[in-house]
């Protein structure tokens, strides 16, 4: 451990912070529909998801040695400062989208941050653009379509098969089905996403010369990454859960079950068959597909467009922040210090903004009053201003969606 410098320590801590934001950002993927349909109470739901994320982190022995999926030429001079800058970009984008309650891919933010930092520090030559398109951009378009169609047909089928059954009696069955598929999504998430952080930490240790280039991650890396993601999951990104469970469409138990099953199957099929899709994008697509599967179901495209816009911005935005951070961090110790101070200040500001309108386990199932907003920026501004949730949703003149008003009037 003689090479374990302060900088490596900072990178490790930042990686764990990213892992934490990854956890709370993605709680929604597994649990949003389970919570919004009432299959599980909010707190037990996130607790179960957290435990399964932790288990998932230890489950697989196959470690992602290349976190960047061949997009970044890791031999081209990636130094700890660059990884630090990339993580800063990814975390800030995760926090900003969380403030806006937008489900966006944490993995995509990580890739965006690392790409931006690498371009600034090494040059565009260190990026394999074709791999970026083939492995990140295209799957981002494919994921919601694949999962959405599967959820659409599955929802139609389950409504058709159960049309004569008593909803009172089928309720327990749908609840069990939802909890099971949500558990699978949580487990898969722990395995996939905790490993990405382990990959980053291992890469930092390797570049700093602490461990040998082909070494497996030490146990403390696995354990701390698993704990960070589980803690993040338990604290729950309630804003995103609300958007996914309430904002995109109104979910009934059969839809929740069909959507969760579609998510679980698509995630497992994609990681097993070697065309990996983002968990967040798969789950968002499933929810939207199931929205159309129920007769009279609607998808709130306002919210969906806002989400798509955020997906499109993820790589450029995280990349830009990371690039600036990388240029600063390369100036030496004072540069790293400046980045760290700015990063902590920005995170604190976002957290402070979130306190103006708190979303937690007590009000997560209230109507999503941000649905009428046009884009990320107005949404962020909206989150800062303190409107009383139900009243605004019901009286908002721009909000002409009847289903939404129905939902609001039931509060």
């Amino acid at each position: 451990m003689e090479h374990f410098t302060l900088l490596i320590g900072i990178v490790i801590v930042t990686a764990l912070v990213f892992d934490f934001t990854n956890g709370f950002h993605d709680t929604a993927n597994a649990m949003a529909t389970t919570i919004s349909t009432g299959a599980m109470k909010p707190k037990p739901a996130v607790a179960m998801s957290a435990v399964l994320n932790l288990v998932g982190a230890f489950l697989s022995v196959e470690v992602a040695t290349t976190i960047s999926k061949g997009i970044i030429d890791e031999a081209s001079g990636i130094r700890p400062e660059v990884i630090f800058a990339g993580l800063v970009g990814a975390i800030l984008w995760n926090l900003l989208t969380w403030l806006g309650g937008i489900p966006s891919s944490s993995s995509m933010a990580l890739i965006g941050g690392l790409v931006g930092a690498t371009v600034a520090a090494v040059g565009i030559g260190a990026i394999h653009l074709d791999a970026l398109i083939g492995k990140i951009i295209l799957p981002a378009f494919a994921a919601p379509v694949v999962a959405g169609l599967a959820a659409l047909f599955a929802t139609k089928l389950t409504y058709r098969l159960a049309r004569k059954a008593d909803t009172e009696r089928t309720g327990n069955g749908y609840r069990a089905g939802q909890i099971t598929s949500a558990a699978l999504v949580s487990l898969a998430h722990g395995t996939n996403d905790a490993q990405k952080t382990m990959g980053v930490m291992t890469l930092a240790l390797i570049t700093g010369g602490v461990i040998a280039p082909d070494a497996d991650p030490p146990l403390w890396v696995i354990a701390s990454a698993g704990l960070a993601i589980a803690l993040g999951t338990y604290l729950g990104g309630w804003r995103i859960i609300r958007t996914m469970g309430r904002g995109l469409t109104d979910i009934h138990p059969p839809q929740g079950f069909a959507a969760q099953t579609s998510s679980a199957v698509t995630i497992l099929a994609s990681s097993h068959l070697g065309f990996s899709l983002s968990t967040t994008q798969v789950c968002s697509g499933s929810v939207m597909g199931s929205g159309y599967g129920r007769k009279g179901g609607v998808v709130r495209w306002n919210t969906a467009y806002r989400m798509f816009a955020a997906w499109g911005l993820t790589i450029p935005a995280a990349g830009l922040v990371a690039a600036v951070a990388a240029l600063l961090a390369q100036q030496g110790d004072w540069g790293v210090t400046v980045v760290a101070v700015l990063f902590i200040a920005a995170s604190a500001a976002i957290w402070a903004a979130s306190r103006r309108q708190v979303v937690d386990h007590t009000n997560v199932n209230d109507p999503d009053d941000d649905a009428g907003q046009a884009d990320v920026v107005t949404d962020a501004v909206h989150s800062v201003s303190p409107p009383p949730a139900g009243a605004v949703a019901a009286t908002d003149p721009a909000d002409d969606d009847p289903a939404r008003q129905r939902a609001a009037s039931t509060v």
Partner: protein
Amino acid sequence: MDIDWAALGQVFGVSLLATVALVGVFTLGIVGGSRRSDGTAGVAAKAGSYLAYAVCAAAVAFGIYTIAA
């Protein structure tokens, strides 16, 4: 451009079929086990329902296997 269209198509097909099949089988299980509004459930319906749940449990076990493998 290294877009693996075959893998994408495979993921698409498998996801669609497996989702619809699982949801269908599970729904049959729910319906078979719950059709008791007239007081009785047929033995065949009960058995079919347990079979459906067994198929789903096997699918979940396979899912966990693919995560761990």
